[in-house]
């Protein structure tokens, strides 16, 4: 079943077109990597889906409903959880408060308290370091811990899809390993749909799943990560960017 459907989506900043006519169909439970060089338009595309950056054309459907032009909070409330580039923890809030902000959208549903406590436990089980430091300011966490926090914060919303922009950014490879290990475990456990943006295809090849390569705002390749990863087509397409 299709969870996210992008049809001919474009994003412009003034006269610069960052995303030009991207169409992607993402099925429930699927893991999709979007890779591509810096400036390819990956983040712009993600922000457009999340409703943070307006689209200049095309439309976005989530779970069968048109979400183009809706507010970020509405889109989040439909089950689209976004972890933006640079993580964006609330540095002055404690770790637990950060997690509670993530849970807030369900505060009107009955049984919210018990549910939130259970979700909190489950996030702390996945990332024990967060539990240990739960009353500290999130700004004091290391980069890897912050990445864990924002993933946990996204989970607290009980989303159907989590979109993560460059989770490996600025992290040491072994820390990135830890983050991915848990992310993939969570995905399997909850049959989450994942949309992960990374510059390189390395992680996609390690994890497996589907991979899309973007360049200059367009989708240039779409296929199985392991098959595409080391293919000549991939190398050519990726580095083709440098040619002009």
């Amino acid at each position, binding site marked *: 079943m299709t969870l996210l459907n992008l049809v001919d989506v474009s994003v412009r900043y003034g006269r610069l077109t960052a995303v030009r006519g991207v169409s992607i169909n993402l099925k429930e439970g699927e893991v999709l990597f979007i890779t591509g060089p810096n400036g390819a338009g990956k983040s712009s595309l993600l922000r457009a889906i999340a409703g943070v950056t307006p689209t200049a054309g095309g439309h976005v459907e989530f779970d069968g409903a048109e979400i183009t032009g809706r*507010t970020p*909070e509405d889109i989040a409330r439909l089950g689209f*959880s976004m972890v933006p580039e*640079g993580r*964006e923890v609330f540095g002055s809030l404690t770790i637990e*408060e950060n997690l509670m902000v993530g849970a*807030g959208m369900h505060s009107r549903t009955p049984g919210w308290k018990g549910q939130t406590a259970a979700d909190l436990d489950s996030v702390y089980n996945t990332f024990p370091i967060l539990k240990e430091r739960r009353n500290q300011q999130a700004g004091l966490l290391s*980069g890897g811990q912050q990445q864990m926090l924002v993933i946990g914060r996204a989970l607290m*919303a009980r989303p159907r899809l989590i979109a993560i922009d460059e989770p490996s950014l600025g992290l040491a490879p072994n820390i990135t390993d830890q983050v991915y290990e848990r992310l993939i475990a969570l995905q399997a456990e909850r049959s989450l749909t994942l949309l992960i943006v990374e510059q390189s295809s390395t992680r996609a090849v390690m994890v497996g799943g589907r991979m899309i390569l973007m360049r200059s705002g367009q989708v240039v390749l779409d296929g199985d990560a392991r098959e595409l990863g080391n293919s000549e087509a991939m190398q050519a397409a990726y580095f083709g960017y440098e040619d002009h």
Partner: protein
Amino acid sequence: MLQIVFDALSLGSLYALGALGIALIFGVMRLVNFAHGDVIAFSIFALLWPSTDAMAIVFAGNLPWFLLIPFVLAVGAGLSVLCEIVVFRRFRNTNPATMMIASFALGFVIRYFLLMLYSSRPKSISLLPILSQPVEILGARLPLLQLITIIVTIAILFGLVIFLRRTRFGLEMRAAAENFSMARMLGVRANRVIMGAFALSGALAGAIALIFGIQTGTADIQMGAAVMLMAFISTVIGGLGSLAGAVLAGFLLGAASVVMQVILPVDARPFRDAFVYGAVILVLLFRPQGLIAARGTKERV
């Protein structure tokens, strides 16, 4: 001596409440709201029937205190929320300078509206006259109002801290103040948070109006402007957007004004404000980011 301490605290209270009203709104939408002072003036004039006479015809001002206080706070909050819905909402995605000019213009609109209905002549009003009676504490004779101003301000500050730390809405406001677009991506409703900030800020304006009105016994269209200048300075010295900083700086400015009034040579006293502003410039030279730098700017690791 005790008298000086109380003078400093009660003046500081007014500045702190004013600064808080500005900092709350700046926190959630990066708007420096110059209309805040006019919301203060409006709150007090709402107690009077429109007329251009010097003797005010009191309208809601005769209410007993337990109705009068909520009425004034609600007027402040209501007008402030109205400003957001009618004006500021349309400027939300513009740059801070544009929003600031819009707030200037809006302030003038409110002021001229009052001018039209009430003329520019200050009106004498007597609100809760019982509060003007002196009380004796530790040998010093203090107006009861001064004591109440300080107690009320401290109570408001405590209440606000508890609200921000312990309630769901407070948590959302803090998150939104730090990173608005991230908060929205987590489902925090922008309009609700911003309207909440305007309502709180407006209620604080109402509180200032009440204290000021009782203290001076007049309703004056200029009254907001007098407090607001110091309140603006407090928010900047405190670190724009930092609530704790705004309060701290408000009290410091109040103390500085009162202390200078006492220690300056008699000849220099009329120029007290020049000395106060001089001190402000010194503080800003040494700490341009303010006493307590706000955490609103995104930290990237």
